[in-house]
């Protein structure tokens, strides 16, 4: 029975992947641009309908994302994390595995980083060199923990046929709940009023170098780009990557050429989780410097789905897509201070972008009807 059953979902994914691959690079760019513009337009209509000035809102969006050095630094801060979570999603989606659990894996990774560093710090002398060692060890722990946390739904999918979309979403809730409980109780920093862990030592931090923003470091951004490069090479140049991409493109062809479908699912999920772990570590070290209740740390793992889809699940495309969504997030922080428009609107707009990216046919038909179909077709 199970061969037949998992066939249903498999076919569904195959078809989705096949359709996504139908698009040319140019069409994808057009789709990304059209989706973003349409979502922003709807956002502006909502702003106007709610009684605010849409022009001022739009000005705030630009001002708050790339308006000056501090806005740009804030955008790059969000972008750094989104690049990493975006790549984590892209790895899985490319292989036809719907890992919606990047948020949970990101939370597990970040928490484990902080706990590991806090645990090891007393054993080393307080020096910048020790800081580097601690950051490397903390990130390594995050990669292992998040990789394992992602491998679990991978195993459940491969060997028990449990739909990974739903198990990963459930594991997001579990990660947030458990880590939330841990920082509230057992791991709360001594004398902390807020439910936070203790702070990381001063010397465990990334150097700022360029911008003034204490939450952004060029080193963090470089780490993100390095991971992108590694993943891109892995996908194109190695057997593991080849197996993953072939599985995502055509399950039947992959099986025929001798790919172990089950093992590929587990590998894909583990790899995806490992990158999410790096994202968690960078977030914990570069941005927070401690760990707090994950219910309030931002939805980097979910926005990453929008990032990856906009980038057509291509690791290199994730960088510009992250810049766009990093800009939107940054604009959100700016708007929440400098404007009365409820900042939740930005989340809604991100959701609309995803909705439109899912429907390329919508724009194709619109293009055909208006006679602008030249580059779309």
């Amino acid at each position: 029975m199970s061969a037949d059953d998992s066939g249903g979902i498999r076919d569904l994914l195959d078809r989705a992947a096949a359709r996504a691959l139908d698009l040319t690079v140019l069409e994808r760019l057009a789709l990304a641009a059209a989706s973003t513009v349409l979502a922003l337009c709807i956002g502006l209509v909502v702003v106007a309908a709610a009684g605010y000035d849409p022009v001022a809102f739009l000005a705030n969006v630009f001002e708050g994302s790339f308006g000056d050095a501090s806005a740009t630094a804030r955008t790059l801060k969000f972008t750094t994390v989104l690049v990493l979570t975006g790549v984590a999603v892209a790895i899985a989606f490319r292989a036809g595995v719907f890992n919606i659990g990047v948020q949970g894996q990101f939370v597990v990774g970040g928490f484990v980083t902080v706990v590991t560093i806090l645990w090891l710090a007393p054993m080393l002398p307080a020096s910048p060199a020790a800081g580097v060692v601690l950051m490397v060890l903390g990130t390594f722990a995050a990669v292992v923990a998040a990789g394992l946390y992602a491998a679990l739904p991978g195993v459940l999918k491969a060997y028990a046929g449990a739909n990974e979309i739903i198990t990963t979403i459930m594991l997001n809730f579990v990660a947030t709940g458990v880590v939330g409980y841990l920082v509230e109780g057992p791991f709360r920093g001594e004398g902390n009023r807020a439910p936070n862990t203790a702070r990381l030592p001063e010397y465990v931090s990334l150097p700022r170098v360029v911008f003034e923003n204490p939450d952004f470091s060029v080193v963090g951004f470089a780490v993100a780009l390095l991971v992108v490069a590694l993943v891109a090479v892995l996908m194109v140049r190695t057997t593991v990557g080849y197996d993953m991409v072939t599985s995502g493109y055509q399950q039947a062809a992959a099986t025929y050429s001798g790919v172990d479908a089950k093992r590929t699912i587990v590998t894909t999920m583990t790899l995806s989780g490992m990158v999410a772990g790096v994202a968690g570590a960078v977030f914990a070290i570069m941005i927070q410097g401690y760990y707090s209740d994950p219910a309030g740390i931002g939805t980097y793992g979910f926005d990453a789905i929008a990032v990856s889809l906009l980038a057509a699940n291509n690791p290199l495309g994730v960088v510009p897509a992250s810049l766009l969504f990093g800009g939107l997030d940054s604009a959100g922080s700016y708007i929440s201070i400098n404007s009365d428009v409820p900042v939740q609107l930005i989340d809604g707009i991100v959701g609309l972008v995803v909705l439109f990216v899912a429907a390329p046919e919508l724009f194709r038909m619109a293009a055909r009807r208006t006679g602008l179909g030249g580059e779309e077709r």
Partner: protein
Amino acid sequence: MSGATLETGERTRLLVGGVLVVVAIAVLSTTVFDLPVADILTVGFVERLLQAASPIALAAIGGLYAEKSGVFNIGLEGFMIFGAVTAASVTFLLGGEGPNQADLWVGILGATVVCTLFAFAFAVLLVRYQANQIVAGLAVWFVGLGFGPFLAVLLWGNRNSPGLTSMNDLTVPVLSELPVVGPLLFDTSPLVWLAALVAVAAWVVLFRTKYGYWIQAAGENPEALDTAGIDVARVRYAAVVFSGAMAGLGGAVLMAHAGSFTGTGDTMVNGRGWIAIVAYLFGNYNPIGAAAAALLFGGLDMLQIQFQTAGIELPNRLVNLFPYVAVVVVLTVWGSTRMPSAVGEHYESEE
């Protein structure tokens, strides 16, 4: 065909096995860990369980119809958020901070209507524009997570609504005096009855009317339905719109039982739409089975209060995770379900 019967037999065996395991755990935990099961299984608990299960059951029945017709509506969670926030908004706009029961009913109705309209737009994207069902469904969730709290902040300056009003119990004279059954069935929220009614009606329509057969055929064998002269796209439109309406109603029911809207974190819906999907898979695409599965998740959802009254010390945050863990366990043990064969396939009529 023989595969199907074998499958049913296996399924029944699994179900019986599952129930036995639950009973065994209950017995073990009473004797070994000295858990006060009698304190946990109270009439009040079952009453709360029924109320908690109603929204999940409604959304599950909606999702089941969509999937039976060949469209995977993964956006149930999003529609539930819209349902909850719309119900709260309409109730508030009608009655301010002290709305009465009529305002609440109009709020529930309004939420269902609004979600029907949204679901129609969603159905157009899925059926006409052949959107990727998984991605579009996720997007509905994100849109709900954004615009739900947005609307709340717009109206109340806060992600949460002020206390509005919750649904009053419907008390049937005389019958409500019956022991156990009385308070459970004849002195309870009318929305529990509504959910039960919808479950039975959905079963009858799906398995006993020609419309139900059309829906099943649209999911299993769209070519045959087309040959018989029925418009496959139209059947799917109807099923998807119905699923959105039911999920919206489910969200509204959730709000009506709670008495206010909560928009912090993942909003008050908090995964119930996803649990609804598992409920209908667990219920094997049967509306009554889906409602029964919803009872299980509703019960897990309400365990926290029982643990407190029974004096069991467990952090709330961890007890609240039981339903999610249960979902993972159910999906693992239950394994893959046989989805309708044409789910996710876009159907183009030949003519």
